[in-house]
């Protein structure tokens, strides 16, 4: 029942999100997600990409912005999250370094 290292095909991915393949290809074109593989036949989608698309759809509809803006905001959110994580790690290392 547990699926872990799942890679979804384009068809499975679209079914999961209730999207047409065309719409999915458009989102890939905007750079919101980047599946592995050369073209639609080979594309393999990671489970985290489901969340990324859901977030993109929420952002577009809630903030009433276009897909270019969504792609930019998604990229900036990911970068921000990664910097927050890196900052936490560095702070933690600094604390360890100062504690003795």
């Amino acid at each position, binding site marked *: 029942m*547990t699926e872990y290292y*799942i890679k979804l095909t384009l068809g499975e991915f679209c079914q999961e999100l*209730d*999207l047409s393949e065309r*719409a999915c290809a458009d989102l890939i074109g905007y750079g919101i997600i980047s599946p592995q593989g050369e073209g639609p036949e080979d594309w393999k989608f990671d489970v985290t990409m489901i969340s990324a698309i859901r977030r993109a*759809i929420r952002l577009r*509809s809630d903030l009433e912005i276009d897909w270019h803006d969504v792609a930019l*905001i998604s990229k900036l959110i990911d970068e921000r999250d990664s910097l927050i994580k890196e900052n936490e790690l560095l702070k933690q290392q600094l604390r360890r*370094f100062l504690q003795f």
Partner: protein
Amino acid sequence: MEFKDYYSILGVTPEDDKQSIKKAYRRLARKYHPDVSTEHNAEHNFKEVSEAYEVLGDDDKRAEYDQIRQFESHGNSFTPPPGWKPKSGAEGQYHETDFSDFFATLFGDNGRSKNTRGFSPFENTEDFYSTRGQDIEMEMPVFLEDTLRENTKTIEYSLPKYGPTGQVGSVEKTLKVKIPMGVGDGERIRLKSQGGPGFGDGGAGDLYLRIRLIPHPLFDVTGRDLNITVPLAPWEAALGTKVTIPTLDGKITVNVNPESQTGAKLRIKEKGLPDKAKRGDLYVILKVVMPDEENSETKKLWAQLSEKSGFCPRKNFGK
């Protein structure tokens, strides 16, 4: 029931036009959107702003709301006028919403427009009476030690329970989940059809477990590598030594070279976190620590060292 002042929530006045309301909504939505905002109450604020815009951004709902505002009694709980019936909400159809009781009382549980937040902007092929259940995402805290091998964890969560007219309660669910070896922070495990129940003929949603590695008292995680800071006495750093350090799977002894500096890193291969293919490395970061207390004998030895050594760490300082 608390009266909701939608105008105040959006920071607009009843005289403001639709364009101003839209502008105010967009500004606040960007500020509070849970995907964007880092404020702790962002989700609550965003729901309030969304609810306010759902009403004030729709001419019919706004007209009904303006009508009902006359019945607001300041300081007391709000009760709608006798015989109040929503006009703008569709009746008899289920639609999940997080809006307030106030909204539900005024516009019905189904007052939220169908083509709104959370729906696919591309298409909606679902039969409105048969809706797939909601996907649920939960955090799964995992100890670093538990990533070394497959583990079984028990999780408990609640799912909504639906009757013919919508949600009628919730049910508690318990599941045993296998957490595979080598899970990483932020990764997701999907449990198919273990999410919210579908409505009508719609299937159940999925349950996603988002892995969160629990911070370790000794090790910091960088990707698959681990870092550990190891204190050394000044003479250990000067002369070199062997130190025993903990790893996730037992203690090991490492050689510290003579003349080691604070901040020097020793790489211990394949003692980090496991991946599908191999394990990351463990980095031992050295830190020279002065003794807390000195007696007269050790002070004398330091003095001797000071006289004999020509070392000055500030030789090029400020040059």
